[in-house]
């Protein structure tokens, strides 16, 4: 048996592993990308959310695949099949509650992850494509979550599907044709449910593929870090294993605690009571409200209450709502500052905290009936959202005077911990 020389990457392993690795370099791939993979020494807990999101994605796929074994995608049977799952399938209630609340966890984690990227300028050279792939993942997640919400075929499922698919009718000329295509008919019905189920099963695997590309792009230049300066060599980095495997495990436990609290003690906290009423095309719920993670987009959609320059309000609402995410694709170029981390940008640092506050205001607006001052708040918040990305981001890069950057991560870390004596031993263990 031909075995490669001992200097090959998998040299520490048995002959069998080395034989395989010589032909299929799986072990060396894992070693290179997950064990030795150098990470900046100064990563803080905000950097936990990427791997956390990946793990939640796996949890969602595993629970979802099992749920699909018991689910019937037919408009006459879907609601009852979900109830049967809750009552008669062994631990069906547990799987469904994990899947339901896992979706909320997934979005919470991804939104924090996204905010981390904005705050520390993780989208800047050379990580533009890494960021863009992340935005693609977010779009896919929204589509997947929306279609998943339709599957139980409760009142909110049905009416959310009706409201959201109807948005496409705002597109000039082809709008109505697109809506008919989405519905598979002339109203939301069984064909709609069938295609949504099919796509809800498909898209998570597309997400997995894009996550693969996201990681590929990440590992090309490595993680950004709170200082936003490049690593200059081994003195600035530490291997992923064991430092980040253990740190991420700790973070995972905390996240699972939060998830477990909701799954076991408040499983319907994020759910709408209306969705335990079977879908009824003849009765419209008082307030059609999406899940919390889509509320800001819903608020933007409803904030345009007037036509502008002959463009109908509905179309403008759709464009601005979708645009709020599409805008993120251009962030690497909208931000004109060469300094990555908000730590060294006194004005941007302040402004970047206003953005989540703005998003929360939009979320609140989305949850309320569109009446009175709520509409005004929604319009102001929508304006500010676009103002942040289109005006503040390009402008601040020009006028703001950033604080001086440290020379290297190593020196900054040593200054912070106050010891030069550990410099030699800090590299590798």
């Amino acid at each position, binding site marked *: 048996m031909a075995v490669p020389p001992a200097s090959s990457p998998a040299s520490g392993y048995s002959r069998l592993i080395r034989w395989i690795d010589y032909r299929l370099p799986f072990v060396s791939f894992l070693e290179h990308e997950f064990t030795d993979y150098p990470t900046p020494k100064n990563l803080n807990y905000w950097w936990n959310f990427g791997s956390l999101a990946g793990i939640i994605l796996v949890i969602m796929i595993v629970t979802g695949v099992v749920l699909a074994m018991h689910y019937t995608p037919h408009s006459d049977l879907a609601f009852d099949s979900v109830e049967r799952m809750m009552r008669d399938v062994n631990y069906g209630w547990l799987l469904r509650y994990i899947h339901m609340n896992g979706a909320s966890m997934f979005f919470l984690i991804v939104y924090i992850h996204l905010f981390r990227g904005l705050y520390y300028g993780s989208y800047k050279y050379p990580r533009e494509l890494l960021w863009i792939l992340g935005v693609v993942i977010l779009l896919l997640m929204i589509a997947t979550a929306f279609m998943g919400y339709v599957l139980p075929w409760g009142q909110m499922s049905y009416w959310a599907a009706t409201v959201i698919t109807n948005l496409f009718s705002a597109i000039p000329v082809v709008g109505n044709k697109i809506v008919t295509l989405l519905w598979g008919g002339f109203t939301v019905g069984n064909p709609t449910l069938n295609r949504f189920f099919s796509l809800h099963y498909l898209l998570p695997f597309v997400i997995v593929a894009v996550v693969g590309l996201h990681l590929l792009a990440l590992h090309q230049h490595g993680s950004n870090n709170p200082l936003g300066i490049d690593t200059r060599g081994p003195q600035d980095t530490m291997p992923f294993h064991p430092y980040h495997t253990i740190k991420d495990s700790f973070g995972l436990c905390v996240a699972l605690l939060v998830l477990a609290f909701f799954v076991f003690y408040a499983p319907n906290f994020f759910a709408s009571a209306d969705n335990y009423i079977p879908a009824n095309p003849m009765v419209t719920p008082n307030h059609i409200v999406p899940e919390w993670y889509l509320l800001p987009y819903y608020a933007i959609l409803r904030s345009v209450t007037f036509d502008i320059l002959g463009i109908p309000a509905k179309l403008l609402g759709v464009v601005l709502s979708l645009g709020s995410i599409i805008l993120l694709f251009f962030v690497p170029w909208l931000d004109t500052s060469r300094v990555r981390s908000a730590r060294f940008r006194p004005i941007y640092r302040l402004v970047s905290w206003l953005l*989540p506050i703005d998003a929360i205001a939009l979320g609140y607006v989305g949850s309320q009936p569109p009446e009175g001052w709520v509409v005004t708040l929604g319009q102001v918040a929508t304006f500010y959202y676009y103002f942040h990305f289109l005006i503040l981001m390009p402008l601040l890069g020009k006028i703001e005077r950033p604080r001086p950057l440290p020379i290297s991560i190593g020196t900054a870390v040593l200054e912070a911990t106050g010891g030069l004596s550990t410099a030699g031993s800090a590299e590798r263990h």
Partner: protein
Amino acid sequence: MRAPLPALLLSLAIAVGLGGAARALEEAPEPPHQQWPFEGVFGTYDTAASQRGFQVYKEVCSVCHAVKHLAFRNLEEIGYTEDQVKGIAAQYQVTDGPNDEGQMFQRPARPSDPIPGPFPNDQAARAANNGALPPDLSLITKAREGGPDYVYAILTGFKDPPAGFKVNEGMYYNQYFAGHQIKMPPPLTQTDQLKYADGTQATVPQMSHDVVSFLSWAAEPNLNERHRIGFKVILFLIIATGVFYAAKRKIWSRIH
């Protein structure tokens, strides 16, 4: 390594707050909170109350309302014995078939059968109820904002309308129903309307409480198990979190 834990907690609190805001939309008066034994981390259903509630459902509610997601066999979960369940089921006739001659036929229900509802279809239900459709009750405590408190409030919320309030023909005034007019006639009206098998005095609040206990179990039959498993899972995760945190500290101490 500074951990901006307050910021993380803030983000979480915000997400949680938004979830709550998304639901708190109803204009009807807030139903007063009742004490339910199934609340809280260790909450479990009170089987005696649930059995009394089943009796209320069977003798009063089931005239108009179905509980289609329940089978007779499920009643064992609220403390009925197998033989009692067989006895309860045998009181009902269900349609089965077709038999070898191709005919549908009636037979006494078995524990595996779903509990039959009062009407063969929604149209029949509307025809018998002045055009109103009595909703299926198997999920009612999950399908209404306020849950068990709301259902209890509706059952006990029938009052004489305030002066000047005009109640439409065939409607009844209920202080907790949105719009205050409900098509359901007051179902529980007087003490000793029914005679409890266990001798409990059947006052209106008692019957309302019992039937809501029964319906809460019907809507979420796995709550006892969920609370029991949840406690163990959370205990395990708290310990695991501590262990991983200690391990993280230990491993990272090589760096600092």
